[in-house]
């Protein structure tokens, strides 16, 4: 039977505010345990929450960026459950009246599928603390630094039809929140976490199958792998005559399997009710419009502009615009060298390669956009070849300096003087009697391929500094003269 996959995502985005959503404690990452957990975060008696205006502003920014209705009145509720890293015994969240109403984003997968994914809503809530289960004499250790960190939970409709679409959607949300600057987007540190609701149904069937929820997936690659694994499990189960049970499952990346965490049968009844400690949040049009006026250029718009302004391919424009610091860097390189295509190749090629190898964010790239732009100028004016440029770039990465300084210091300036090149070509031809004979004996149309050998010899003799175009011309001319 042919199966259709149905996926909806719940993405938790940690807002990059300076302080907690309801207290004045810092949200900086990596502090010593419980040094950023104040009396409010610890739920000590007599404390009251006060809502952080910046968290509200960031949630509204997100809503505007995803074409959503903004809740002019939103209400905080208590979601009740017991766990030691939730000191209040409830999570303050939103339910019936969230800050962000229905909206949508458009996605595109690598294999060219485009789709509009509808957002059901997005709401503000607080994060919980962290439990450490290493052995503290049979006890668990609790760190409440994260407790009260503001989150926006973004709930999609079940509009995605493959794991690739789900990953593309998550990437789009990531691009939007990082472009807005409302989240640092660091998935490894948990700044963005993803729950995937997955079900399958026979193709053509309208009724949704029973779904399972895959919890806390923290990379785009794992989103794809976890969903693929879970889909295969569900289909096998049904085809073997079983049925899918609605439950929460955990994806184990090491074993590439999902396993049951808890079934919804004994799931908590959260007993939501409006939080009496917080009043309804009321905002007006002027507040919303003032925020709209501050929105940066969003990834979709920037991609369209890159295609239009720089004549980039759809793919290149998509990659470059997906992360704002990278898009900014790219535009600075273009500004410095005035060659959009060359700049795109280098930012997505050599630069991305070294950034990946060294696990470095482009924001702290050892080679600045000005340095790279300066290097590309030297390729354009034929001072160096593309290959030598790679060498200069690596030296730039490890030792700093401008392209001109490195080219000068390393003596890498390209030889374009045809007299000098001719001399070397003559030497190469004189020392390669056998290859010259083969060249002369070959069919004329096969000779082009055979040039590669001589080319290599000339490059070797000049340390790669000879201008490749000039060498090809001279080689061809001299060899063909021998043939006639």
């Amino acid at each position, binding site marked *: 039977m042919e199966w259709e996959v149905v996926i909806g995502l719940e993405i938790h985005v940690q807002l990059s505010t300076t302080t907690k959503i309801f207290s004045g404690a810092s949200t900086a990452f990596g502090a010593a345990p419980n040094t950023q*957990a104040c009396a409010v975060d610890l739920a000590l008696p007599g404390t009251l929450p006060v809502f952080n205006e910046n968290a509200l502003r960031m949630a509204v920014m997100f809503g505007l960026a995803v074409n959503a209705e903004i809740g002019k009145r939103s209400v905080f509720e208590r979601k009740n459950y017991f766990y030691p890293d939730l000191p209040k015994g409830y999570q303050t969240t939103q339910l019936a009246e969230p800050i962000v109403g229905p909206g949508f984003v458009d996605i595109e997968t690598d294999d060219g599928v485009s789709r509009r994914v509808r957002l059901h809503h997005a709401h503000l809530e607080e994060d919980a603390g962290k439990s450490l289960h290493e052995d503290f004499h049979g006890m668990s250790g609790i760190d409440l630094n994260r407790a009260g960190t503001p989150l926006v939970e973004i709930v999609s409709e079940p509009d995605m039809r493959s794991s690739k679409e789900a990953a593309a959607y998550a990437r789009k949300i990531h691009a939007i929140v990082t472009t807005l600057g409302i989240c640092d987007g660091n998935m490894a540190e948990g700044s963005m976490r993803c729950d995937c609701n997955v079900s399958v149904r026979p193709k053509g069937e309208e009724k949704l199958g029973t779904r399972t929820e895959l919890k806390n997936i923290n990379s785009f690659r794992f989103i794809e792998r976890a969903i693929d694994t879970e889909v295969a499990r569900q289909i096998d189960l049904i085809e073997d005559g079983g049925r899918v049970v609605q439950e929460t499952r955990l994806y184990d990346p090491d074993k590439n399997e999902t396993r049951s965490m808890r079934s919804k049968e004994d799931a908590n009844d959260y007993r939501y009710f409006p939080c009496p400690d917080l009043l309804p949040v009321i905002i007006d049009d002027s507040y919303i419009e003032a925020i709209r006026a501050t929105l940066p250029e969003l990834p979709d718009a920037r991609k369209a502009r890159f295609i239009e302004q720089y004549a980039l391919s759809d793919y290149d424009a998509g990659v470059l615009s997906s992360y704002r610091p990278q898009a900014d860097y790219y535009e600075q390189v273009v500004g410095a060298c005035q060659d959009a295509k060359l700049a795109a190749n280098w930012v997505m090629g050599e630069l991305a390669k070294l950034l990946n190898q060294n696990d470095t964010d482009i924001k702290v790239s050892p080679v600045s956009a000005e340095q790279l732009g300066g290097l590309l100028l030297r390729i354009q004016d034929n001072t160096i070849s593309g290959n030598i440029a790679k060498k200069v770039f690596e030296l730039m990465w490890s030792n700093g300096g401008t392209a001109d300084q490195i080219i000068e210091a390393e003596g890498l300036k390209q030889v374009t003087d045809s007299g000098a090149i001719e001399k070397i070509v003559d030497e190469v031809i004189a020392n390669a009697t056998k290859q010259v004979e083969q060249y002369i004996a070959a069919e004329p149309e096969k000779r082009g391929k055979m040039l590669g050998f001589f080319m290599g010899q000339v490059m070797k003799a000049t340390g790669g500094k000879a201008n490749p175009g000039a060498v090809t011309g001279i080689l061809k001319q001299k060899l063909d003269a021998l043939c006639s």
Partner: protein
Amino acid sequence: MSLDRSDVERIAHLARLQIDEQDIPTYTENLSSILNLIDQMQQADTAGVEPLANPLDAVQRLRADVVTEPDQREKLQRVAPAVEEGLFLVPKVIE
């Protein structure tokens, strides 16, 4: 509407309340009568009435995003029964 014994046990479990076996009939009766009162309130015609999130006729005050609470760990952990390496210790919990 009336509750039965298992409802009371479930509510107690959700609230993590330990209740005496002998008190369950009383709780069942008391909670049922509260629900009866709610049933009676449900009879009121509320068409056109906005749900009330808070009885105060006021809106939420907003706070500037500035750190006002520096590290007070030492003071705050003085009341905790067990701490180690800056962590609060609690009976082992694993899902």
